[in-house]
């Protein structure tokens, strides 16, 4: 994919991400989280943001005295910082050939939409100080202003790779090691056989990762609007199929698609994950908001702090 197109996607993503507040991932097992971030927890702890001054009591570490404040009065004060902790999120965008599809000229392609969603999420999270990485990129999750840039470049690089190679590995999330308690967002059309997907999800869920699936579909894939004699051709070498009256199988196809959706949802629920669907003729912001709500909500049954 040309860089120009990708720049466009990035620009769109930035635009959409601006409309959502910084995405603060719901933090779980905060006590267990080792990594530090700007994830303010409204309590004193280790962090970089000033939280409060507290009177010195014997036993406090002397190096934490705030001499400037202490000099203003007779008492000694400690400077306490807000305790901040960063979440780690891994994003994955399906770059396979099946994503390169748009039924109408004026519709965005599925891939394009997926990339926009990916970058928008990444943008929203990085603004909140979370640590974000592209799944399968082999990079460590990082935070900061430039993370979006690097993710965008990475995505462009990967999609260029995917375009040139016809291997199928791009349609299933790569079997990467994920730190425990990370967040995973998978964006794809999830048209691959559910069994293949199940293995991947179970692997992630096994490390106690929480995840969200966003299915990106074209309206034509939803409705099968074709009429008459049609030869359907697969895009990933699945073969082709001649339908003499495409309109006759429309209802059956819809049922089949609903079944597929159900199995996908069951798969997600079994792992405690969630699923949402984005159709390319909808606004990306709407789907982003859905993901945002899911990710920022705390789905833990109970939190021990």
């Amino acid at each position, binding site marked *: 994919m040309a860089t120009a197109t990708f720049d466009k996607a990035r620009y769109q993503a930035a635009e959409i991400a601006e409309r959502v507040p910084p995405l603060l991932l719901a933090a779980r097992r905060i006590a267990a989280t080792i990594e530090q971030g700007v994830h303010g927890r409204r309590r004193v702890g280790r962090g970089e943001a000033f939280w409060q001054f507290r009177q010195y009591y014997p036993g406090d570490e002397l190096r934490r005295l705030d001499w400037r404040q202490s000099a203003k009065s007779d008492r000694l004060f400690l400077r306490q910082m807000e305790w901040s902790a960063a979440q780690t999120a891994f994003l994955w965008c399906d770059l396979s050939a099946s994503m390169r599809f748009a039924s109408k000229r004026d519709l965005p392609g*599925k891939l394009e939409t997926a990339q926009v969603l990916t970058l928008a999420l990444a943008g929203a999270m990085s603004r909140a100080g979370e640590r974000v990485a592209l799944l399968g990129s082999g990079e460590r999750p990082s935070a900061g202003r430039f993370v979006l840039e690097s993710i965008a470049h990475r995505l462009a690089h990967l999609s260029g790779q995917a375009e040139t190679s016809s291997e199928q590995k791009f349609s299933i999330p790569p079997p990467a090691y994920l730190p425990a308690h990370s967040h995973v967002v998978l964006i794809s059309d999830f048209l691959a056989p559910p069994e293949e997907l199940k293995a991947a999800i179970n692997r992630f869920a096994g490390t106690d990762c929480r995840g969200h699936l966003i299915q990106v579909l074209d309206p034509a894939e939803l409705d099968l609007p074709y009429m008459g004699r049609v030869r*359907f051709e*697969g895009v990933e070498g699945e073969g082709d199929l001649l339908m003499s009256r495409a309109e006759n*199988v429309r209802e059956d196809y819809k049922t089949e698609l609903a079944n*597929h959706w159900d199995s996908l949802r069951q798969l997600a629920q079994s792992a405690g994950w969630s699923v949402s669907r984005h159709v390319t003729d909808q606004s990306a912001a709407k789907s982003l908001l859905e993901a945002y709500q899911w990710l920022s909500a705390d789905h833990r049954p109970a939190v021990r702090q």
Partner: protein
Amino acid sequence: MLTLGSLTFAAPWLLAALAVLPILWWLLRLTPPSPRRVLFPPIRLLFRLRPKEETPHRTPWWLILLRLIIAALVIAGLAQPLWNANFGFPRTGPVMIVLDDGWAAAHGWEQRKEAAQALIDRASRNDRQVILATTAPQASAPNFGLTPMPAATAATQLAAMEPSPWPTDRSAAAERLDKADLPANLNVFWLSDGIGSQKADIDSAFSDALQKHGMLDVMSLKLDLPLMLLPPERDPNGLWAKVERTQVGVVQPVRLRALDRDGRTLGISEGSFRTDERVARVKMDLPVELANRVSRIALENGATAGAVTLLDDGGGRKPIGLVTDNAALARQPMLGEIYFIERALAPNHEVRADRLQTLLKQELAVIVLTDHSNFADGDRPALKKWVERGGMVVRFAGEKLADDANDDLLPVRIRAGDRTLGGALSWTEPAHLAAFPNSSPFAGLKVPKDVEIGRQVLAEPDIDLGNKTWARLTDGTPLVTGERMGDGFSVLFHVGSTADWSNLPISGLFVEMLDRLVMTASGIVANADENRPLAPAQTLNAFGQLTTPIASAVAIVAKNLSTTRAGPQHPPGFYGPDNQHRALNLAPSQPVFTSLAIPARQLAADRTLELGPSLFLIAFLLLIADMLIALALRGLLRRRGALATAGAAAIALCLVSMPRPSDAQQIPDQDVLAATETTHLAFVRTGVPQVDATSKAGLYGLTQTLLRRTSVDVGDPVMIDVEADELSFYPFLYWPVTAGQHTPSPQAIEKLNKYLAVGGMIFFDTADQNLVGMSGADMGPGAQRLMELTPGLDVPRLMPIPPDHVLTKSFYLLRDFPGRWIGGTIWVEVPRGRVNDGVSGILVGSNDYAGAWATDELGQPLFPVTPGGERQREMAYRFGVNIVMYALTGNYKSDQVHVPAILERLGQ
């Protein structure tokens, strides 16, 4: 060759390909339309669905039918179908087409040509050569002769052929055929005009001569034979037209139109042939004065030379001489002796008043002598001789005649003295007129009761006085007597020509009586040389239209006119000088007017049609339709897209087939560019070379001045022909008014009006101030000419230029406007509010401005200015600059913004 009724196939073996159609049907049925291909990522889901019914998809039967029709059309088109082809010829030799091209062939000439063209086409399809022959005599032998030529050449020769306005001469044609070296085995087609020759055996001899060379096919059009007009007759009841037809048996209505010399319709009369009539007499229902002006009678719906008959000039309108020694005195209103006579005759006749000697040298029909007319020596014998040769002399009585009873130029002997009725010493009452006797030329005129005769001269009672009396009073005394003298008449009114003796001259009856007398007169008595040649003035073409004489027409000696037969040297038409046209009619040269006795095949006027191209076109259209259908079946067209595509295709086809609309006005692009790249001063071509040269030099001088002194960038001056050129490119037209130029046509006037309406400016220069003189105010002859030149030009009210007009300050500040002359006034339009911003579209000056501006290439002035001084020329240039500025900037300088600057310059 295969012929089915009127349909012929030139290459019928190709039709065998139609046998392939069933195979095509089978193939098309087996091959379904190719499916639409769609990329579909969730195809895995589709794999799980097995369609319930998978009937093999077949091409719909109507689509197969459509394709078969296309194939059949192409096959049929390739087989070269022809409609009405009449293929082939019976003989092996060339094709000879004999075309009657006399006047009668003008009736349906186009159909005749089409029939001949069809024969030529047929010959060309059979690779035969063509011989063209005509039967009407021609001044020169046709350049194609009687030799075989290729069909294409014959077609061009045929296209150039025109019928002749004289009858055919088949005996001469037969002679030509005999002399010609014609190949054998000809296929001869004689397209006859259906009119027989003078004798029937001429026609049969001609037909034999044709038969001799091969197979003869005599053809005639499915048309009625034309009618022929015979020269009309005039009698006291009016004008009678005579129409002749070839066949009798039915009642046939005719409509005749009488036209005057200028081609204006005077009246239309209707009549009809009775069942067994060959010649119908139709009275032209026209008042005498109109009947006298008839110059041409034409059959309403027969466009042939035979359907037009021409009348001599003066057939009704006759030249009449009034004898007087002092015309001015004699014409004195109410009192002069010829005043009433002239008033009565002038509307319908050509009246000349002069001395008798002068009149006798002219061609006259009637000479009127009043009592005051004096006879010089030798006048009486000359007049008498003139009367005996056919002239009519009409005399009026008076004191002198009453005293001189020995006049021998009178129809009756006059008793000396006159008779007074109703006078102071008379017991009688003034006498009234009795009804006119039947033998009199005045028979039938209504006698008004108020005509009273107070005095008259009396005739000696002779034995034949009764016969000579054309009008009498109630008591029986003659009032008008007339007598034949030789070929002419001598007529005497026993009263005077003024209202002294009677009130007859001031009654309406007087006019009618004189008209009747003139009509009775034999006609023009040409004292002129009977051997003078009459040059052709206007001749008829075969379609009965008067045109300029054809090249072969030569003059006819006057005395031979009546015996001349129409032919190439003497086409029917008018001969002789203007106003004395003599008519040569067609009818005498066609003495026998019958239909052709030889049986002829009636020829349908329909043509051979080549159907191939139309079939291909239909097949092509169907193919496009098939393509659209196929695309639609594959789903490649949305419904709206399909409609749009079909619409676009239809529009494209319409555009291709539509004739290219001709541009309303075709001006070469380079001219437009040249005219519009820079501003040009333009002047109107007058057609007088000297004036045009002066205008050009004048505008050249002005152009140089403008370039030197102002920022106006003008190109070379342009000469404009108001008839032909586009005016709108030029902001300013200089129009010198001269006597020599033609009045613009109504179209040109319309163009000028449009030019003025859109803001053009015309500067008329009458250039006549030198003739008006220095007095200035009144208009010179040029202004008069200007008014003649521009009738219909939309000129608003003009006024002398006011001292504060924009023209006085548009560039220079000027007080007066000298040109080559000084003193003239510039006339401008009275401002009409917001119309054209109050800028005057018309300027009229009289100082010959171009003369003052004119310079040669070196800038040397060409004409002196009067009264003189280079200051006057400088002022003329300044005015020129101002007028161009005015044309270009309008009333810009009249804006109040400029007032302070102008005031400052004026030193106020």
